[in-house]
């Protein structure tokens, strides 16, 4: 089972990885130590592959730093579920193949045990099964490809675009 990590509203990219901890300031190799280093210091050390982040609205607001979703992917975050994501964060996560779902599950408790069925967009909790809103087809296709770079290599175009 995966666990739920609960966060509030307006989680910004400075909370996910502060600018002072960017690979540019430190090194690529250290990035996995830094997600939520100040906002939630126990996160990076104890998060397990497949764990789910559940947050309030406007998750990922702020800077365009791709190393924010990249750091979450590096430590194995399985998906992020929030009612609304900031635009650039959503796009960066999609490009990296990190699944995001737009849903308000803020009633889930921190530490709750869950299981995500990504293919069928289902989240199993101990008590019941939650149907997550299925993203548009092109988003699923990018996930299936493993991110936008493999998607472009595979299809020779951007989603919805003509041949490059």
């Amino acid at each position, binding site marked *: 089972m995966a666990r739920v990590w609960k966060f509030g509203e*307006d989680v*910004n990219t*400075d*909370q996910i990885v*502060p*600018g*002072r901890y*960017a*690979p*540019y*300031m*430190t*090194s690529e190799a250290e990035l996995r130590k830094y997600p939520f280093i*100040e*906002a939630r210091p126990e996160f990076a050390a104890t998060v397990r592959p497949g764990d789910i982040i559940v947050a309030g*609205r*406007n998750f990922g*607001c*702020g*800077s*365009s*730093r*791709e*190393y924010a979703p990249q750091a979450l992917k590096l430590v194995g975050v399985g998906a992020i579920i929030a009612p*609304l994501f*900031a*635009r*650039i964060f959503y*796009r*960066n996560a999609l*490009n*990296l193949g990190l699944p995001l779902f737009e849903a308000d599950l803020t009633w889930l408790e921190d530490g709750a045990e869950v299981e995500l069925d990504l293919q069928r967009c289902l989240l199993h909790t101990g008590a019941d099964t939650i149907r997550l809103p299925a993203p548009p087809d092109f988003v699923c296709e990018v996930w299936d490809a493993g*991110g*936008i*770079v493999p998607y*472009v290599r595979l299809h020779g175009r*951007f*989603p*919805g*675009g003509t041949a*490059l």
Partner: protein
Amino acid sequence: MVHDSIAPSVMRVLHEELDYERVFDPERVAVVIDHVAPAANLQTAEAQRRLRQWVRQLGITHWFDTGRGIAHQVLIEERLARPGRLIVGSDSHSTAYGAVAAFGTGMGATDIALALATGRTWLRVPPTIIVRATGRFGPGVGAKDLALWLARRLRADGATYSAIEYHGLDFLSVGERTTLATMALEVGAKAGIVAPQGLPQDRYPVPEWMSLEVTAPPGDEVIEVELTTLEPQVAAPHTVDRVVDLSDLGRVPVDVVYLGTCTNGRHEDMAAAARILRGRRIAPGVRMMVVPASSEALQQAIADGTLATLLEAGATIGTPGCGACIGRHMGVLAPGEVCLFTGNRNFRGRMGSPEAQIYLASPEVAAATALTGYIADPRTIEGWIAGN
């Protein structure tokens, strides 16, 4: 547009993941060192050395090294940003280009690498939020107050995925337009475009195909604002939308006043502060940092005596660039310190310690605050006359 902070990732994706050796057109790419300018440690110094080498190898013509200034200000000054252009930048505040009626939007390293490789990107046409302003700003009130008022009205995510169009602001300078356009991102917008009426046509010509009519298709949100009724606004820690009228703030003593950034670090911002500080000294115990948005802004401030006025008042100056806005160097905040900041973000830990407090306001409020030692209304400073 590629800046130093993201360049190493962009180079990695372009060359290692996409296997492109070149960019699509070296004359349509701008590279700027602004996020850590000058380099603050060995890591950034080495990354910048590699960036310079890369720019030379690829023959990139629009190259702006340490000290030229913040990418957004530089692209507007160099007229690389112009009405009708589509500009993608590796910085979230690339909405800035809307100041000159370009569609500017921020993206991450992978998107930027793909754009560099192919000269193309993929975008969905966003819905529009129309801001329709009437009247003129009162004394001591300006574009930053309007931007903060909009954050208060919309919330930090109120314009997510939308483009904001600003109308009725033909009298604004390019700099004031840039304040609005950079702050569009802070309410989640994909772009923030100020209608080009009133732009200097010799420098920023409007292409014929651009429609200047104000059209609000059904379903688009329209926000009306009467500028004469606006008061000086302040965003309290730790989100951009915790905005109050300054008069409702109460007494907030500060340790640092920081004037700079792509939002409010231009010559006119420094000059507005200098008008308040002329012939006076900042309060004992307050540090005032001034970091010009560009070398051009700095030179103008030297030429007309603005810089001398600020230094005589007790301010100090940094290299044009992003400065401490990202909390990496040049004046980071210690735990417990309070900063009045003319920038665009007051997130916890943004400028250094997560235990520091950042308040956002205009350059006029910054100067009044430096003078008194607490967050102050410029209109209460004796003998001050708003000059425009």
